[in-house]
């Protein structure tokens, strides 16, 4: 599903690895900067000097922007900062990708949003307040949980967690870890990538594959 083939770019030298369908993978980079670089390569926003990056079997440098965006819509990324749009209320943020790509009425997603927030350990009485807020006023760990809901609503084939398990309160982290494990099993063949430069933060997550960046390469 994700394949780097001899990728040379800033921070990477002939990096080759594959993450197949159904795999839960810890991907540990040497620094936060390298983590960002890897994500840029994966999203085609920083092309590789040499080598190829492929998503779902399609090489990113060889497809049109429209095709690349279609591929990205099959991935859910939970950003460490939440990645929410600051001028949209949380409720609008959560529904943005699903309404954009699939259409329908917002009310149709209410129950699903509530269920996902419940699974993430958000207390029921806080939900209405969160949903009507602008994201900027909420704590970063809450924004991460909301980012999880937004990504999960799309029912993605690949779910990438970008340093989201770092710096959390213990109970929030436990909820987020159990959510990640539960969500991984919710769709046959779903790939989960736990991406971080801080390996200890990924300790509570079971993984089929652990990849580490070392001296520019990425090895198991």
């Amino acid at each position: 599903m994700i394949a780097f083939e001899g990728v040379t770019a800033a921070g990477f030298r002939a990096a080759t690895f594959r993450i197949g369908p159904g795999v839960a993978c810890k991907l540990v980079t040497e620094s936060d900067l390298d983590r960002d670089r890897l994500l840029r390569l994966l999203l085609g926003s920083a092309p590789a000097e040499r080598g190829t990056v492929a998503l779902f079997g399609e090489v990113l440098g060889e497809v049109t922007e429209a095709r690349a965006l279609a591929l990205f819509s099959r991935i859910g990324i939970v950003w460490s900062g939440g990645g929410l749009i600051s001028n949209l209320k949380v409720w609008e943020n959560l529904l943005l990708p699903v309404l954009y790509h699939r259409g329908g009425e917002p009310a149709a997603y209410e129950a699903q949003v509530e269920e996902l927030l419940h699974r993430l350990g958000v207390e029921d009485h806080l939900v209405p307040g969160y949903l009507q807020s602008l994201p900027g006023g909420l704590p970063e760990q809450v924004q991460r949980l909301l980012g999880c809901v937004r990504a999960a609503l799309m029912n993605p084939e690949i779910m990438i967690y970008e340093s989201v398990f770092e710096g959390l309160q213990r109970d929030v982290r436990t909820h987020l870890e159990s959510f990640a494990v539960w969500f991984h099993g919710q769709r046959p063949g779903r790939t989960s990538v736990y991406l971080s430069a801080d390996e200890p933060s990924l300790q509570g997550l079971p993984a089929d594959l652990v990849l580490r960046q070392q001296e520019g390469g990425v090895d198991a």
Partner: protein
Amino acid sequence: MQRMDVVEALGRRVLTFLGHVVGALSLVAAATRALPGLAQRPVRLVLYRQIYFTGVQALFVVTAIGLVLGVAIVAQVSSLAGRSSVLIGRILVWTVVRELGPLFAAIIVIARSGTAVAAELGSMQVSGEIRSLRALGIPAARYLVMPRILGLSTSLLALLFFFQASAVFGGLALSSFLFDLSFRAQVDNLGAALSFFDLSLSLVKGVVFGFVIAAAACYHGLRVRASITEVPQAAARAVLEALILVVVIDGVITVASLL
């Protein structure tokens, strides 16, 4: 030698400016291709919001300025050329409908919304929100640029109408009140002086100015890269370049209309 330096610096500035114009035009082209996106609910929501912020929220200030301008024009005209309702009607058409209406409405929109759009998109770039949108499979041209260009342009047209209507009303009301001229007779004279060509000219200016302002604002906002300090610079550039383009295009359209 110094003269050469000045010429070189000037030439470089002109080339940079032209480069920005080309960039903004390519953004308009991308936004045009993205028009089918209006079928999507989230895109329509951005359009409605832009119309609300640019059009509805500016209605009061535009109407007030139009009213004062109409009063000022009629006061000056009558002090210079006497109390002729025919002349007042013609001058209101020449100044308000053909020239000042589109120009003032454009300046108000540049000051209120051009800066806001450039700053908003610039902040979104810095905070990684545009990267986040792309990762969701949502293109900036379709979700951010197209509804802003469309919303700003349609709002400018509506504001232009309100500006002209309030300026004409203010001018005619003043002359009726001070000079005892019949309001009805003045409206008839104005109607006689106002041609389809005048209205078309005003409409063309409104549409072109709207596109220019929105494209400049979006272009400079999206050009912001890494630093928050680039955001006010982008807003300032968007305002300056939009103003220059609006004034130049206004001159070109006016001259072309006289040929």
